[in-house]
């Protein structure tokens, strides 16, 4: 048998924010520009101590707002720097104007982002309304289930974003407080291994290259705007294969493989919950308990929401009998959640498709527990063989 070379990894107790800051330390970006906001503050705060202690060579820019933070990242990335920032909720809202610009300029900025409910009313706890608000900004969006994934995803995001076929900004999310402030035991790569995995960054262009003067971000009217959007659209399509390849390589090297989706006990499943982020961890326990009772229940975790894994989702869900999509935000479209509507559209052209319902849950940090998830599986079990669907979009854990 060939000898398997195992990279010796450091086992440490870290919160989600600490884990993401640790990944940033290993990445040692050229520029970090950030502004504090709960629950993401610690990421840049911890990182700034690495800067102060000389553990990284980063130019740390403490700006006056998140709009400026991302603008500084865009400027430095356009000059060829590897740039990072971190934020949450209202901070992301303030970055929203600059986000599509970073994508269109094809600048691979990587941003840890802690999911927090957007105002109003004002709330600091987890839901996905902030990230979903920016879902059409041209950024890759990777959701983490726990602290380990948060760490692994930040490292992979650098590889993905900077890949020649992608060249797009990427945000890696954790769930506010649930992951960002909860301490877990994780495995951390040795520094040299992490650096080797992400590799050196060579920007495609630099505004500071005086020998090759360029204009970045010029006005672009009817005759070229469309053609300049197309390569970005295509890059998001190309990114799917790159994300899979980077996730596979990470798995081969470090024993934790990643894909666009994670299928949990889906092989012979008849019913499934589809969800993102930390709720997947809770749902896995419920699936295990139901499996012990002989129920054919499974879980589909969407790890990458942008680009949306249309083909993979249709392939996994088409043969099921009943599916519940869990959305930790509402689209405010007078119908349902963003994940639900996109999962439905992914299935529309499948010949076979499951019955499908939507639950909006966990807004503003409202807890989601085993019993609530069990009640969703119980409903799926009752509708899978004939019973009427009933309410298609419902609100789990809300006092109506």
């Amino acid at each position, binding site marked *: 048998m060939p000898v398997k070379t195992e990279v010796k990894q450091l086992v440490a107790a870290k919160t989600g924010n600490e884990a993401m800051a640790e990944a940033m330390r290993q990445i040692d970006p050229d520029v970090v520009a950030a502004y504090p906001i709960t629950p993401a503050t610690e990421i840049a705060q911890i990182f700034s101590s690495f800067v102060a202690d000389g553990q990284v060579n980063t130019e740390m820019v403490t700006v006056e707002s998140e709009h400026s933070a991302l603008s500084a990242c865009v400027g430095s990335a356009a000059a060829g720097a590897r740039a990072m920032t971190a934020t949450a909720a209202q901070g992301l809202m303030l970055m929203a104007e600059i986000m599509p610009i970073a994508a*269109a*300029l*094809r*600048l691979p900025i990587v941003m840890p982002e802690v999911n927090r409910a957007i105002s109003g009313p004002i709330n600091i706890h987890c839901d996905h309304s902030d990230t979903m608000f920016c879902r059409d900004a041209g950024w890759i969006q990777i959701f983490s289930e726990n602290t380990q994934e948060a760490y692994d995803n930040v490292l992979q995001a650098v590889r993905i974003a900077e890949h020649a076929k992608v*060249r797009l900004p990427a945000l890696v999310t954790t769930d506010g407080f649930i992951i960002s402030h909860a301490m877990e035991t994780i495995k951390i790569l040795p520094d040299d291994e992490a650096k080797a995995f992400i590799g050196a960054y060579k920007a*495609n*262009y630099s505004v500071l290259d005086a020998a*090759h*003067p*360029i*204009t*970045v*971000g*010029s006005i*672009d009217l009817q*005759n*070229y705007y*469309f*053609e*300049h959007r*197309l*390569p970005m659209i295509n890059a998001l399509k190309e990114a799917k294969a790159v994300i899979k390849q980077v996730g596979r390589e990470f798995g081969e090297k470090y024993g934790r493989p990643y894909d666009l989706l994670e299928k949990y006990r889906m092989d012979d499943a008849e019913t499934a919950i589809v969800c993102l982020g930390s709720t997947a961890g809770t749902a896995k326990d419920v699936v295990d308990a139901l499996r012990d009772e002989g129920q054919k229940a499974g879980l589909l975790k969407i790890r990458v929401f942008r680009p949306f894994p249309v083909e993979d989702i249709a392939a996994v869900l088409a043969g099921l009998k009943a599916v519940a999509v869990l959305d930790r935000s509402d689209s405010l479209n007078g119908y349902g959640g963003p994940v639900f509507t996109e999962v439905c559209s992914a299935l529309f052209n499948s010949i076979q498709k499951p019955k499908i319902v939507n639950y909006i849950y966990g807004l503003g940090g409202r807890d989601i527990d085993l019993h609530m998830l069990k009640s969703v599986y119980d409903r799926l079990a009752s509708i899978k063989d004939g019973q009427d669907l009933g309410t298609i979009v419902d609100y789990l854990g809300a006092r109506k």
Partner: protein
Amino acid sequence: MTTMLDEKKYTANLPASELPEGGVWTEAGSSLMRKTGDWKVEQPVWDKAKCISCFTCWAYCPDSCMQIENGRMAGIDLEHCKGCGICANVCPPKVSAIKMEKAR
């Protein structure tokens, strides 16, 4: 001033696949192709006889419209001037070589 730019490259309706990544202009001089001075309300009128070629206006003009020849002020590029009036404002008061007038 000559342009370094191959104009045809930017007016030929190229397909998306032939454009530089990120929509950057890969050559300098593109502003010479686009006349941005036609929407001003006021325009500067420069008096060559009064001007002492101190170049204060040259340093301040946001559109680099001041034309210099042989180390002297030679005129204003009205095809790119937006009529902001900064040049008239910064010209030393004792000289007042630039007046703003209604644009034609």
